[in-house]
């Protein structure tokens, strides 16, 4: 029997496992192949919804499903935490002590957020990368009576690259709706020399920032927060006073990948082939989603488009052939909705060779994002789209 082990029950891991079960169902039923997925929480969380807890009346309970309910019945689910990969033995050790063997390994282990890396972050700054943090931000917005709002990015890379710009746009929009805009300033801080990493998106977003009177601060890499003066300081020597501070927290890959020699410190991002998605030249280990070091959006859609390539790689490996067909190689495909406030949105679609050409923001793409959010659990994890 050949064993496929998937670590992680997010978009990438769940979809990969379900697509594998679909393609290999006869071999699984005959006992020739085993597909096992390990997930620490046993729950699948729709993380893009967190922003809408803060900005759109979303409820936390709507954003989570039991992982078992999303998985094909042929897949074994183990609720535990991977703590070590032993490459020589071809095993993964779990926190509960179990040792799980693999012939093929899929690392869909996501990213960690580390607000604590920046002193005073947790007391002074808000974010929207967990449900609890998003609720806290919502309470702070409800209590906000005008003043200086600073939205920024503590370090790169981070999940959902458009999110901080979206939050700046949505906060500005809300302040206008609540009659607080005249009493407020909104600042957006970017670590690089423009508003967004991708030039064409930056060219789309910068005039919107100007129209909304949101002040753009480029090359602002957050260095420290001074809670007494209520000032956020940049490595570049700039200081911005705040009344409401919203920062994307620092992100890293999983520590056990560093400890197991699969990912370099300190970032912990897996060195991943941009086309095959194989990790570090290993013939039987793939990575997808937020865990990779690929120069792409850390977003669910990236994992969504990578999963069929990982599946084809595994099936080809089982059959002793090279990957073939339309999923033989990943071409860098990503698709993200992008809110600009005032009930409008746009769409970013791109790949390695074709930068996004976002359409003019309109109501249609905003509604598209809302519909996608509401239907996500019925479509993406089960491989229906």
């Amino acid at each position, binding site marked *: 029997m050949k064993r496929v082990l998937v670590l992680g029950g997010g978009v990438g891991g769940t979809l990969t496992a379900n697509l594998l079960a679909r393609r290999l169902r006869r071999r699984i039923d005959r006992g020739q192949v085993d597909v096992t997925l390990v997930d620490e929480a046993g729950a699948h969380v729709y993380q893009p919804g967190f922003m809408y807890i803060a900005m759109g009346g979303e409820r936390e309970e709507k954003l989570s499903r039991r992982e078992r309910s999303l998985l094909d019945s042929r897949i074994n689910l183990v609720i535990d935490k991977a703590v070590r990969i032993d490459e020589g033995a071809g095993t993964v050790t779990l926190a509960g002590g179990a040792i799980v063997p693999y012939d093929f390994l899929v690392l869909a282990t996501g990213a960690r957020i580390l607000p604590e890396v920046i002193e005073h972050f947790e007391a002074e700054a808000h974010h929207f990368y967990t449900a609890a943090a998003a609720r806290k931000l919502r309470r702070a917005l409800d209590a906000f009576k005008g003043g200086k709002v600073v939205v920024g990015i503590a370090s790169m890379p981070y999940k959902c690259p458009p999110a901080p710009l979206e939050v700046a746009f949505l906060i500005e929009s809300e302040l206008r709706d609540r009659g607080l805009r005249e009493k407020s300033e909104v600042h957006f801080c970017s670590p*690089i*020399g423009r508003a967004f990493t991708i030039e064409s998106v930056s060219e789309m977003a910068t005039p919107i920032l100007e129209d909304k009177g949101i002040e753009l601060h480029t*090359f602002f890499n957050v260095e420290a927060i001074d809670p007494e003066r209520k000032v956020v300081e940049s490595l570049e*020597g700039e200081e911005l006073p705040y009344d409401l501070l919203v920062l994307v927290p620092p992100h890293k890959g999983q520590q056990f990948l560093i400890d197991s020699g699969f990912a370099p410190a300190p970032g912990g991002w897996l060195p991943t082939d941009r086309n095959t998605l194989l990790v570090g030249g290993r013939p039987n280990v793939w990575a997808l989603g937020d865990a990779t070091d690929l120069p792409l959006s850390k977003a669910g859609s990236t994992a969504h488009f990578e999963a069929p390539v990982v599946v084809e790689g595994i099936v080809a490996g089982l059959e002793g052939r090279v990957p073939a067909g339309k999923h033989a190689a990943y071409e860098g495909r990503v698709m993200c909705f992008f809110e600009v406030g005032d009930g409008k949105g746009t769409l970013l679609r791109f790949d390695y060779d074709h930068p996004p050409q976002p359409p003019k923001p309109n109501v249609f793409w905003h509604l598209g994002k809302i519909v996608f959010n509401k239907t996500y659990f019925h479509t993406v994890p089960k491989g229906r789209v």
Partner: protein
Amino acid sequence: MTAETETRPTITRTIDARGSFCPGPLMELIRAIREGAVGDVIAVRSSDSGSKIDIPKWIEKAGHRLIAVDNRDGFDEIIVEKAR
């Protein structure tokens, strides 16, 4: 493009960011600047054509010293001294 002083200080750390795309090389440099000491001379190797524009702009804003931007075989080497 080459912009260099008459005598170049010794490079204390080289970051090979070839194959990484914008803003990867800049982020690698920022990490090295954070970890380094005043007077350290850091060379960043980048195959992303945007780096030779973005990194000097960042160096100027951050108050460090651009020593050189050298075209090498298939990549650029940007040399910077941590000044503060």
